């Protein structure tokens, strides 16, 4: 997650900031301890920025815009277009009922120009900074993938064994085991590359889906835009009789003669 000093130095060198600012950035970021604190503060501030933007805390009376100018709310083109269309529609309606058509058209043009100017003003403010916009997935920094094992689970009193094996590569897996009869009964499991996990599952029918990727962005965005979503086509029946309890071992390793078919699914189906 933490970039090497070579990468940081190269980024500083290529950045569009003054030599003094470059020197300042280097002096702070070249010290591992300072860098750690700086990065942590930035992560918190980005989340605060995202929260403010998503809760619509824009232009609140007590927020010090100057102090937090790096993290201002960014008006997007989609939002702007919606505003302009709303504005024009209202004026067209008014025009239809008015004899002062020409005057209203002029007002309409002026109003639209103001909105566009506002947009570019916002754009200017944000162009040189780490702006929070309406695509939080790309603003949320990569974080450490959770520890290998059960991330959360509502499955209790498991008796049937389930073992999952993955291949050693850069990819991590976020696996979901869902009870078919009651989807509320499920477990989310984090599997690190090349590691195996063994858990106990309550008896019943289950489906298994998983997301994989290299960089983790948290439970909401998983592996970000690179997330690959898959589902195992088979339904897993964990059952028992008087002699034994049956379980499964799944190898999430692509094999030409494998007996477990998977299919790509959409994020919504995950």
């Amino acid at each position, binding site marked *: 997650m933490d970039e090497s000093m070579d990468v940081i130095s190269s980024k500083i060198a290529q950045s569009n900031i003054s030599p003094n*600012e470059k020197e*300042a*950035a280097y*002096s*702070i970021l070249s010290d591992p*301890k*300072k860098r*750690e*604190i*700086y990065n*942590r*503060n930035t*992560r*918190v*501030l980005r*989340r*605060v920025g*995202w*929260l*403010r933007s*998503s*809760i619509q*805390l824009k232009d*609140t*009376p*007590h*927020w*010090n815009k100057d*102090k937090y100018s790096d993290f201002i709310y960014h008006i997007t083109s989609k939002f702007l277009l919606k505003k302009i269309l709303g504005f024009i529609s209202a004026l067209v309606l008014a025009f239809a009922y008015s004899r002062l058509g020409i005057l209203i058209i002029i007002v309409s043009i002026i109003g639209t120009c103001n909105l566009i100017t506002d947009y570019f003003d916002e754009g200017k403010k944000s162009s040189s900074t780490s702006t929070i916009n309406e695509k*939080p*997935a790309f603003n*949320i920094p990569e*974080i450490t993938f*959770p520890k290998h094992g059960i*991330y*959360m*689970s*509502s499955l*209790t009193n498991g008796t049937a064994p389930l073992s999952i094996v993955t291949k050693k590569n850069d990819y991590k897996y976020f696996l979901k085991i869902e009870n078919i009869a009651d989807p509320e009964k499920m477990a989310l499991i984090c599997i690190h590359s090349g590691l195996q996990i063994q858990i106990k599952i309550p008896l019943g029918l289950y489906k298994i889906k998983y997301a994989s990727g290299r960089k983790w962005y*948290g*439970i*909401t*965005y*998983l592996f*970000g*835009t690179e*997330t690959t979503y898959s589902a195992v086509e088979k339904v897993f029946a964990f059952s028992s009789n008087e002699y034994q309890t049956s379980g499964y071992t799944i190898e999430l390793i692509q094999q030409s003669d494998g007996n477990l078919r998977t299919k790509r699914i959409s*994020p919504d189906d*995950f």
Partner: protein
Amino acid sequence: MKQKPLINILLKRTSNKTGLCITTILAWVMVSDENITQQEIGFLNAISPDLDKKDIENLRVLLSEFPPESLKIVCNYLQKKLNQQDKVKLLELSIGMMLADGYITLSERYVIEFLSDLFLISPEKLSQIYYSITEKELPSLGDPSSPEWWEKNGFSSNKEQTKEKEPKTSPSRLHEAYATLGLTTNATEDEIKKAFRRLSQIHHPDRFQSLGHEAVKAATINFVKINSAYRYLVGK
């Protein structure tokens, strides 16, 4: 790509939604330094509303990642549900927790400023709350992008840095006790008594009854810590 926020699962299972949201906010304040200690997990266990152990673990995992979608739901909920008086109390409690170890980190400060803005509490009121707890001015944020900020705060002597440098390693009991009361180690007995009286009034659990039992428990933890620090210092 979006997952259902974990907080929704927890909210669905609890009958005490406000308590859960308050716990979440307090825990966010507590872990905003991204370092969750056993003591803090114990704290979560103690103040968590009617959640079972598994859900508390889920809550801990959830907070260790700060999933913004979940925090958004919690913030929206509290913004609508709490009256202004209770919002101020929640901010007081959050600042009290932030200062429980006597220090304030920049990331904790960002969270507090955000909550203050969310609850429409003016910077003046925030400074006033801070002063009532510490009898000190709210320090200016400064610009951590400038070397002056690091220099001014002093990497070796500054509290922010000292805390970051030795986050949860065992500071001496004596230093910890002074820090809990917001004092330096050369404070007089009179100053110790004065700080104790002020802090025990501010953190008295009865003040937080209207916020529910989670807030009362959180205040109790602060209150007990202040009491214990005072007993240690006057008995030393």
